[in-house]
């Protein structure tokens, strides 16, 4: 046992292992302070309230987007004035014939 210990102490690997073991013994687990648990709950609550605010904000944004969509839908689906295609074509043709008259050569007499 003593020889084994001596052999370990002689090689650097063994000394390093012993040093780590000594370090473990030299660093016992610290006692938590009295404020540890209350401090932890404060942090949990702070994050929880932040998450709650974020959730509320996102819900507000979703509601606003839904309202905008609804209004856009209503606007686009409102009834158009009832003008038929034939009415539009007729109006256009009468305008064309007036324009043709202007295109007669100078001095040309209309019959």
């Amino acid at each position, binding site marked *: 046992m003593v020889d084994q210990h001596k052999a370990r102490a002689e090689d650097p690997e063994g000394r390093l292992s012993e040093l780590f073991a000594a370090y473990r013994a030299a660093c016992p687990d*610290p006692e938590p302070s009295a404020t540890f648990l209350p401090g932890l709950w404060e942090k949990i609550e702070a994050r929880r309230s932040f998450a709650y605010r974020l959730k509320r904000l996102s819900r507000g944004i979703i509601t606003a987007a839904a309202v905008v969509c609804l209004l856009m839908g209503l606007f686009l689906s409102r009834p158009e004035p009832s003008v038929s295609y034939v009415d539009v074509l007729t109006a256009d043709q009468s305008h064309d014939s007036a324009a043709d008259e202007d295109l007669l050569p100078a001095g040309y007499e209309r019959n």
Partner: protein
Amino acid sequence: MAVDFELIQRARKGDDAAFSQVVQAYRKRILGTIARLIGRPEDVEDVGQEVFLRLYYSLDQLRTPEVFEAWMYRLTVNAAYDYLRRRKRRAEARMSDLSEQQVLWADAAAGTEREHEAQRRKRVRELVDSLLSSVSKEDRILLTLKEIEGLSLKELEKVYGVNENALKVRLFRARQRVLKVYEAMEGKAAVAGGSEG
């Protein structure tokens, strides 16, 4: 396991009292691990609270209570990584620590038994902190978990999510890097001790 599965299940389901009991059962051990991982006693509680905060918000992702302790270690390691990443290491401070360390090591090498036990422990702490500060944070954390916390390879597999062989290789390399620094320190201390004597 420091607590029974039923308590963990209750905490998972949002029972705050059960969660407090889990914290009380594990806080001392976790704070000890953090203290050895980061080597800064003044920041241990902050990092510890961060670990339990992450636990609180990730407990519902835990599939089976059997892996709870490995899960806790994983959270602890991640929080320690984040802390070490944030902490800016001051090279000049490390250099002064090292030179002071060499003097302390020279004292230790002299092997005077009349020194007080507290002083010896302090030197061991400073020496190992200095050694572990000289390697990367990945090496530091891996070696601390294996060599100081005494986690088995199976437990480390669960913490890191890599297979045993890969872990063995990483451990071997990390250990070799620390050993190199350790031998260099011993050599310098021997020279310092010799020149004093």
